[in-house]
């Protein structure tokens, strides 16, 4: 018993840097970053997000899932001595010495209002709701600013041509952080264009699987009612036995 308790304590101790914040005495390597111009000395193995917190900021914006899925923590930065402006996710990017940065709290982008069940499945849908796609000058700034490394410009061009499959495929990993739209000189809202394109492709470009339709109908018609009445009334012992005797589908 004693030992099991000890295991939990050892695990908790090992995880302390990520659950309650880092302790200065444990840190060997340090860097200096500039948050909106102010310099802070922070542990070198933090991400931009955790470094901002280490510096003393309690984040109320520009933070969400902390794991690269939600797009809340878009951040713009320059490395020391570089002319080039970089864009990335604060939760996914390690700090570097001399980096100066600012987070983007919000993207003021216009989303079109539409009903995909009433739209034609061709290029005109993009022209109707996002006519600015035609202003694309193929400068590729969107692609260069994408933290997911998506081929953003390619899917904007695909939208102009009405190639829904390519729009969907190239934009599928989009987390809608808004960095493309903020950097675009043609003021296109790429991630909203892609959302429209994916939904159109999902609805019209792919088939509705027959077995799925059939199963929904079977359930509505009560095909499983008796079996479900039966299994939901089983005792725990009966269920345990059935569970133990389950046949596993072959791999």
């Amino acid at each position, binding site marked *: 018993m004693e030992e099991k308790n000890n295991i939990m304590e050892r695990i908790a101790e090992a995880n302390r840097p990520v659950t309650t914040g880092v302790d200065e005495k444990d840190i060997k390597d340090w860097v200096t970053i500039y948050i909106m111009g102010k310099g802070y000395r922070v542990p070198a193995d933090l991400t931009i997000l955790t470094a901002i917190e280490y510096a003393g900021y*309690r984040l109320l914006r520009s933070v969400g899932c902390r794991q690269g899925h939600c797009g809340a923590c878009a951040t713009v930065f320059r490395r020391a001595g570089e002319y080039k402006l970089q864009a990335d996710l604060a939760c996914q990017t390690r700090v570097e010495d001399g980096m100066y940065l600012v987070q983007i709290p919000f993207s003021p982008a216009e989303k079109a209002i539409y009903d995909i069940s009433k739209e034609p499945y061709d290029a005109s849908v993009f022209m109707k709701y996002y006519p600015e796609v035609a202003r694309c000058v193929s400068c590729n700034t969107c692609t260069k600013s994408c933290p997911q490394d998506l081929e953003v410009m390619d899917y904007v061009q695909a939208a102009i041509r009405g190639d829904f499959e390519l729009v969907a495929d190239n934009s599928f990993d989009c987390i809608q952080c808004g960095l493309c739209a903020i950097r675009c000189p043609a003021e296109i809202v790429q991630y909203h264009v892609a959302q429209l394109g994916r939904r159109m492709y999902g609805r019209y470009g792919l088939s509705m699987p027959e077995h799925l339709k059939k199963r929904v109908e079977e359930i509505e018609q009560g095909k499983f009612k008796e079996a479900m009445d039966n299994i939901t009334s089983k005792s725990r012992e009966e269920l345990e036995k059935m*569970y133990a005797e389950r046949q596993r589908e072959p791999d």
Partner: protein
Amino acid sequence: MAEIKLIDGYPEYMRRLIEKVEKTRPKRVDYTPPPMSKQEQEEVLKLHPDYAPGGKRAIAVGPNKGDVGPNEVVDLLEAYPLIEPDEIDLSRVDYDTDILIIGGGLAGTSAALWANNQGIAADRILLVNKLRHGDANSIMAEGGTQAADREIDSVQRHYLDTIGGGHFANKPEVVRALVEDAPFIIKWLIEMGAIFDREANGELVEKWGGGTSIKRMHSCRDYTGLEELRVIRDEFRNRQIPCLEQFPAIELFTEGNRVTGAILWNLETGEYKIVRAKATILATGGFGRLHIRGFPTTNHYGATFDGPVIAYRAGAKLRDTDTVQYHPTGAAYPIQIVGYLLTEKLRSSGAQPVNVDGEAFVFPLEPRDVEAASFIRECYVRNKGITTPTGLRGIWLDTPLIDIKNGKGYIAKAFPAMNRLFKRHGIDMAKDPVLVFPTLHYQNGGVETDPWGRTNVEGLWVAGEVSGGVHGKNRLMGNSTLDCLVFGRRSGINAAEYVKTHTTAGNITLEHVKKYIDMLKQAGIKPERRAPILLPDYRGRAALARMIDIF
């Protein structure tokens, strides 16, 4: 800067250990350890954080007085409110609505859509979010959504898998709703334009999930929750349903035993707002950011148990508060990503857990609690784990097997999120294994619900992770996104029906909060803690030690 030299993302000593994994890999391609017997499962579960001694206590007050929960959870249930009830001005209602939905993940967003489908006008619904609409655990769901839609599958089979995985503690009628609605939900999502993975012939790809007896997992690469959420959120925005962001609910209103709205707090300005609602749907998600037993978490920043805290004060019953789901495969290296979710789909696609000697020591798809406990045993009892430069222990997840079994390039195509995550740290998971250890993942229990999302308190519905009953003591992979979508829909429909027959809004009072404060005082609990906590605090200790609170 004297940082450790890394070779393709790993220090040299870990590189040498990887060689042992490579050496046994050819033998392991066709070998999988057999699933454990019930006895073996029970034995290893003693090492699971839920069952290892300590870490829990009984709740001292309220509807579940005497029930046991993790200390971190009970701390919040026994905490004092953020507000002084008498200091709140209730004379001006800022938002008067039919249906208030608190939380905009998959559950809350689908509740709004289905209430609207049911004839509640868009401007009679209000969705409020603590952070942005969609900042939720939903958007991070990677693996998939279960639905028994294959010819050879059946809803009763899904039922049995779910209830067995939950250790037979699930609420039967709620599980029944879950499995019977599942195929409809997939069909609905496809009609809304969601793109699920397809075979070359256009059929749905259906994969294994841990603890299931058949392949029924529907996925969208490893961005399943992201795809589902952004599709229904886009639809929500097209319907122009009112939505507030950075506006958490900090307390409910009641009139007698009926919930009548909520008090919101502007996260940025500190001003409060009063919402009066005929029906309130709570969809606030889970509690990963409580770091129960000191574990890291896969959860988003706002997963702080707010919903059960405020519902409990209003008299809502909780259930299954004693169990916590630890996902077996959280990232354990490098330090920047510790606790991050590495989807179970990696294992259902062929990746194998391997110890320091290169041995496959466990069936890769045990139910999550069993799998997680077996990793803890391997690391801390058998001492066959791998220690990281920062002192964490983990075991290898041999990901290169995925490409060997499914064809070269499969990882890049099927797991773009994982692949991207490791590439950023110099690790190619198609070439090298990755290091994993259990991470706090899911709140199994919560506010008790019936099949329509109703609680024991009139006017209050729950949907998604905040609720309890559907998953029993342990949730299966693919049943959480499904839970959100099934009970989001059901609560939206049921609340809409309620509103049609209960046309007058109740009075808004904080009487229940006053009573709860009295109860805490009577129980001798000192006002040391306040809840809901809304957000965790990761500020550096050095900075905090010198902070002066002036503004």
